[in-house]
């Protein structure tokens, strides 16, 4: 391993040297080529095809909005109506009062916020220890954390559920408490790895200098590591929010109290499992209300999230 690395080093260095002849921004097709008429045609074809294809992703969303605004007669008409004759915005009001999305959105927000705080208390501290403090056995422990990445969480769903129902040693049940979601979610090897690789890039000299000035490990963590890695922490926080919004099976199992359900479980109970007489168009309006927070959040932080996906790399 080491030998191959050493052998490759000169090549890497050579590749890193800037060459003046090449436009660093160029892709498959060069700027010069773009001026040729044939290639221009290709460009317009790509543009047209991509625009058409966006209909596949945006079309269903438009259809959902159009359905939410239809009257209960119009929604069942064949052939389907593209846009309602007189949009019924009151469907959104009905969804707000009948489905009570505020309660479920608040629950989801509580779950997400708690998960973020715990993530910070658990993953960031562990990553700091593994990256900078390196106590005895830290390599072995890193391996133990890493190896859980190989085991998808669903493969141990049943024993994990039983653990939450009857927590060993403490002998208590976490069912119907927020902790049932927060604690298992905070045990995330993926976040530890992301944060550790970010902390690794912070020069050790910085920590060493602070230590000589009399700072202890906690001060170094809070005053140096955390402020310097705000972008990485933000990415982890963002992913945690989206994960909370997506989580379905686990809250369905451990939060049986309907007043504590997050939005995903509530949508399932209200819209799919039960036929409780709420008409289709009102349900659609409710579903739009439910997806707005993550979509708005995404649109606001689009650039950071996309960069986060790229740095977090191959998460899958």
């Amino acid at each position, binding site marked *: *391993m080491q030998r*191959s690395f050493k052998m*490759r080093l000169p*090549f*890497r260095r050579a590749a890193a040297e800037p*060459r003046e*002849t*090449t*436009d660093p921004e*160029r*892709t*498959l*097709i060069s700027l010069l080529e773009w001026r040729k008429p044939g290639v221009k045609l290709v*460009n317009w074809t*790509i*543009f047209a095809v991509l625009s058409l294809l*966006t209909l596949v*992703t*945006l079309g269903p969303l438009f*259809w959902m909005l159009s359905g939410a605004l239809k009257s209960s007669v119009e929604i*069942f008409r*064949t052939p389907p109506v593209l846009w309602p004759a007189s949009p019924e915005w009151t469907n959104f009001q009905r969804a707000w009062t009948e489905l009570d999305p505020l309660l479920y959105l608040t629950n989801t927000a509580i779950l997400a916020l708690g998960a973020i705080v715990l993530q910070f208390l*658990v993953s960031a501290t562990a990553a700091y*220890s*593994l990256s900078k*403090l390196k*106590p*005895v056995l*830290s390599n072995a422990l890193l391996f*133990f*954390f890493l190896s*859980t990445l*190989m*085991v*998808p969480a*669903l*493969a*141990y*769903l*049943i*024993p994990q559920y*039983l653990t*939450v129902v009857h927590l060993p040693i403490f002998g208590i049940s976490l069912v119907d408490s927020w902790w049932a979601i927060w*604690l*298992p979610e*905070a*045990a995330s*090897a993926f976040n530890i790895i992301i944060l550790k690789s970010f902390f690794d890039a912070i020069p050790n000299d910085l920590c060493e200098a602070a230590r000589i000035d009399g700072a202890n490990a906690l001060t170094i963590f809070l005053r140096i590591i955390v402020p310097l890695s705000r972008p990485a922490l933000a990415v982890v926080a963002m992913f945690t929010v*989206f994960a909370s919004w*997506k989580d*379905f099976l686990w809250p369905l199992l451990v939060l049986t109290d309907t007043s504590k359900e997050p939005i*995903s479980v509530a949508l*399932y109970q209200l819209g*799919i499992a039960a036929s409780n007489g709420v008409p289709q168009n009102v349900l659609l309006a409710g579903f739009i209300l*439910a*997806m707005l927070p993550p979509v708005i959040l995404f649109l606001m932080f*689009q650039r950071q999230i*996309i960069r986060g996906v*790229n740095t977090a790399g*191959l998460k899958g």
Partner: protein
Amino acid sequence: MVAVAKRAKLHRQAPPAPLAQSVAHALSRFVRRNGAGLLFLLPALVLFAFFVWYPIAYGFVLSFQDNSLFGGTGSWVGWRNFHRVLADPLFTFAWRNTIKYALYGLLFGYAIPIVLALAIDEVRFGKAYFRLAFYLPVIIPPLVTVFLWRYMYTPDGGLLNGLLNLIHVGPQPWLQSPATALQSLVVVTTWANAGGTMLIYLAALQSIPPELYEAAELDGAGIFSRIWHITLPQIRGVMLIMLILQIIATFQIFTEPFTLTDGGPVNATTTIMLLIYNYAFQNADLGMASALSVMLFLVLVTFSLGYFALTRRLWVGGE
């Protein structure tokens, strides 16, 4: 390092201290060196022990025991749970469906993100818009996606049959026929996930050194020959990783079949995860559920090991 060695030497030269004192000394040095580090690791260690490491081990134990969701004898039954799972006709259905799910997923969805990423990387205008438009489904909560597609799949008055009607094709049963239900589910999964994979391919494309294209162009390689000889070989590693990750993800598919078809019609969409769920939470049979979980666990870990071997080779053996 030198200072430590010197201190050790001094210590050795000093008159032998009483045992208790030297133990205390060593202990205090150990705490000074490791105390903070271990304290910072403690929360993660505790949580992993309770909610990851212990459950993984416990899962194996459960698969050899007789347990019910409402308590059980907990007696050891050897391989009986495994025999019962293997004898269940649904077991074959579940594996066959899951493998079909994975194959259809690759057929429908494997090439799409690559082609999209290539096109978006080359297009001169609207790059940000396209990236956003194709990524948007990833952000939408899965339950909303599922409901939206159920609404579009409605046989009478649904959007898809309406569109088919426009081109004079008869209405399709979509989710309600064993012949089309699984494929309809795969479409939903592909729609929801392709954007995320596309983003990863985009990053991979942007990391291809432009010199390679430059050189190929000078050698007279056309656009398609550049795709074939440079682009694809350069992203080959990412393509392999995505292949394995997609298979790992489909083997855990649950939400779509659970919410849209509940395994039906006629078990055409019962997947392994759904069967595990039904064993545990409908039949309350934790033994069978755990036995099947262990089988799934072994398959997934095999795939994951392949994934890790690959990524490791890619990281260590040059980019």
